[in-house]
């Protein structure tokens, strides 16, 4: 458990060679080298695929913060992908092309929405919490469907990517890819600091035993709410990035099945382990990609595979490599 805490914490070198850090390290190195592979083979598809994986991994990391560490199983987390994406798309449509405006708006609106949803849902638990988060997400989905000016049900192509005043050019596929990569790393670093801070221990303690948390003198609600808002904001940023990555927004970004996908990625990788969501996302999306090339019904194979994970692998993929759940 000690080694786990240090994976992305400060004393990293001390446990650098442990088997459980080797896998995340290998995955990160591979992700970092994708542009090299793409350049060598002249295959830009790899950049697109892995850039997308990194963005969704970021969303999964944010979901893991509330679901894995905080025990808050939000079933509407994709709504923040949608909110972030629509913030970018709507602002572009209205003539605001600067990423310095688009992205902060995406994050701020996501955070605000999370504040409202959290304030109403976090007083409930279990099935009720899941239903409320789902209901809010579906509400936004239907609102997006009704926004005819922004493509309605069909979605809208965004004419130009967010501009960052020459600082970084998102139209350059390699630069865009490394931005996704850097933001994923930053998200992991952020979560690693959060979960080991005083705040993070309250969040994890509350998940573990809320009654005991109250008995030692802490009212968990405000902490859970702040955690919920942080996760929403982080996922909103992923949404903005996703819109820039695909040049496209549509209500499908936040359909409830997308929320389900995010949950699956987190659980597949290992609930409440720092790097688990990344492993889960990489595995899930690559599996989906590979299967879609050989069959018309990838779900037919992914479904049973998930079932096996749920039944036999409680720690997810991360757990297979000596990790422990929810450290």
């Amino acid at each position: 458990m000690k080694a786990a805490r240090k994976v992305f914490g400060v004393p990293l070198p001390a446990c650098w060679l442990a088997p459980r850090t080797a896998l995340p390290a290998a995955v990160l190195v591979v992700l970092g080298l994708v542009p090299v592979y793409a350049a060598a083979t002249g295959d830009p598809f790899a950049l697109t695929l892995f850039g997308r994986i990194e963005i969704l991994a970021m969303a999964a990391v944010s979901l893991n913060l509330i679901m894995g560490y905080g025990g808050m199983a939000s079933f509407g987390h994709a709504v923040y992908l949608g909110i972030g994406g629509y913030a970018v798309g709507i602002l572009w449509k209205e003539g605001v092309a600067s990423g310095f405006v688009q992205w902060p708006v995406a994050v701020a609106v996501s955070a605000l929405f999370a504040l409202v949803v959290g304030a109403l849902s976090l007083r409930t638990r279990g099935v009720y919490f899941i239903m409320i988060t789902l209901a809010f997400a579906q509400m936004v989905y239907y609102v997006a469907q009704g926004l005819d000016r922004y493509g309605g049900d069909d979605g809208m192509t965004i004419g130009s990517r967010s501009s960052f005043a020459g600082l970084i050019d998102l139209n350059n596929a390699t630069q865009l890819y490394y931005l996704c990569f850097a933001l994923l790393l930053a998200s992991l670093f952020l979560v690693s600091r959060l979960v080991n801070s005083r705040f993070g221990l309250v969040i994890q303690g509350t998940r573990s035993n809320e009654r005991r948390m109250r008995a030692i003198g802490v009212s968990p609600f405000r902490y859970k709410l702040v955690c919920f808002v942080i996760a929403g904001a982080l996922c909103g940023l992923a949404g903005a990035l996703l819109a820039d990555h695909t040049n496209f927004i549509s209500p499908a970004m936040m359909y409830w099945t997308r929320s389900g996908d995010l949950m699956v990625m987190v659980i597949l990788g290992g609930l409440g382990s720092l790097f688990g969501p990344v492993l889960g996302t990489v595995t899930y999306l690559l599996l989906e990609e590979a299967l879609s090339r050989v069959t018309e019904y990838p779900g037919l194979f992914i479904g049973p595979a998930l079932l096996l994970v749920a039944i036999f692998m409680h720690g997810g993929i991360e757990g297979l490599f000596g990790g422990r759940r929810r450290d």
Partner: protein
Amino acid sequence: MTEPLLQVAGLTKRFGGVVAADAIALDIAAGECHAVIGPNGAGKTTLVGLLAGEIAPQRGSIRFDGRDVTALAVHNRSQLGVARSFQITSLFAEFTALDNVALAVQAHAGHSFRFWTSARAEAALREPALQALETVGLAARADARVDKLSHGEQRQLEIAVALATKPRLVLLDEPMAGLGADESARMVALLRRLKGAITMLLIEHDMATVFALADRITVLVYGRVIASGNPTAVRADAAVREAYLGEQDARHG
């Protein structure tokens, strides 16, 4: 005469038709070890729940340190200095023993909206926590996860967590529950050491323990106080003998 630390008056709680607390009156002076005894179903754990703030009474009042706390939530009472141990061990199972205690220290060291530095690296949290573990004799197991501790060690940890909040009153709900003879003896020795320094309300089944530790004893039967006083007086009380001790004596002898 100084005011008692805890003053309970007319405390009443009904669950449906069952009266779990029937106009309970109880005073505990600072520094006192006050035992509450009574047969199963007497309402002892309900009383702890009422005092800790987990259960809201229908009637009556609780004053702590001269302040009416009847309507205060659990966490607010903890901040005022009311700590408790649970009858059925209730800890952060995935955390280490030290983490459990350090979190209790943290809970009483200002708000926890600190997002960046590692709480496990804060000496201000770890050192008092380690001290509390030493007090209960668990320092050697500081880094063991709670679910790897024996039942007896978990009971000790319950006490350490309560102590770490620097309580003025500790509600001990059957701290000896499920302990073997040796472990029980160690727990009694621990409570004896804490006696005087910390005000205690002790719920306990074992008569030998109660008479060894308590300064005063309150006897509950069906949610009602049938006797309260020093051990000698309670032992001699006719109603107590009939309702409770007699039954024990008969069983033991």
